[in-house]
């Protein structure tokens, strides 16, 4: 998995690419999310457009990041979720926990509303 970080109107956008299945990949995502919290960047969007699939380890990292950000007054929103990840979010009922948006711009704009 690869992670690229960009800024969109003061919102940190993490663009993930590949498969998210735990191990070193999950560790780097966990570290990146906590780095953002330490820097005070509490509005985060995770772009999943180029993620092939994700297992429960990947979901666990996102949930951990979401909990840590919400505790600090921030949030983590998901954008461009693929069909398979949407299915996994539905199976686990995490579609009720995460705010999910069709694209990055909608997710970023939701922080202003």
């Amino acid at each position, binding site marked *: 998995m690869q992670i690229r970080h960009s800024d969109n109107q003061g919102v940190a956008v993490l663009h993930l690419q590949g498969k998210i299945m735990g191990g070193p990949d999950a560790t780097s995502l966990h570290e990146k999310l906590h780095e953002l919290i330490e820097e005070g960047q509490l509005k985060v969007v995770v772009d999943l457009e180029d993620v*092939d699939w994700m297992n429960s380890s990947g979901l666990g990292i996102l949930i951990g990041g979401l909990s840590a950000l919400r505790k600090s007054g921030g949030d983590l929103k998901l954008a461009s979720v693929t069909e*398979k990840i949407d299915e996994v979010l539905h*199976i686990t009922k995490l579609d009720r926990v995460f705010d999910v948006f069709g694209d990055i711009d909608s997710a970023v704009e939701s922080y202003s509303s």
Partner: protein
Amino acid sequence: MKTSIEKRYPSNQDAVVKAERLVEKFTRKLDFDEDQRVDVAIAITEAVNNAVEHGNRLQADRTVTVRLEWRDSRLVITVRDQGEGFDPDAIDDPLSPENLTRPDGRGLLIVRSLMDSVEVNPSSEGTEVVMVKKR
């Protein structure tokens, strides 16, 4: 192609990556479509991860065995660990509201949803998970 293959991996996170590569190659050769291949890939990473972490508890002297078999238009995947035996009924319900934001505990739920059948056979010599996917 071979209709069955068995591999044994040491109990570390590399096992998850290696088992996923093994099953990806196997399902491609069997002409599973992309959606089915992803279901199987997710399922094997969940099962091997559970075997490494919860079954073998990352102990270096324990291994995880993965067996892939093609029979009667079905892919049968068996994942065995060498732990003390894992009781699937002891897992907290990951769908109950108080557990929804926990970072773990969803692996078996996902496997059961993506595969056609799943059996968990715990014993004092380890746990065997048998998962079936029809083509």
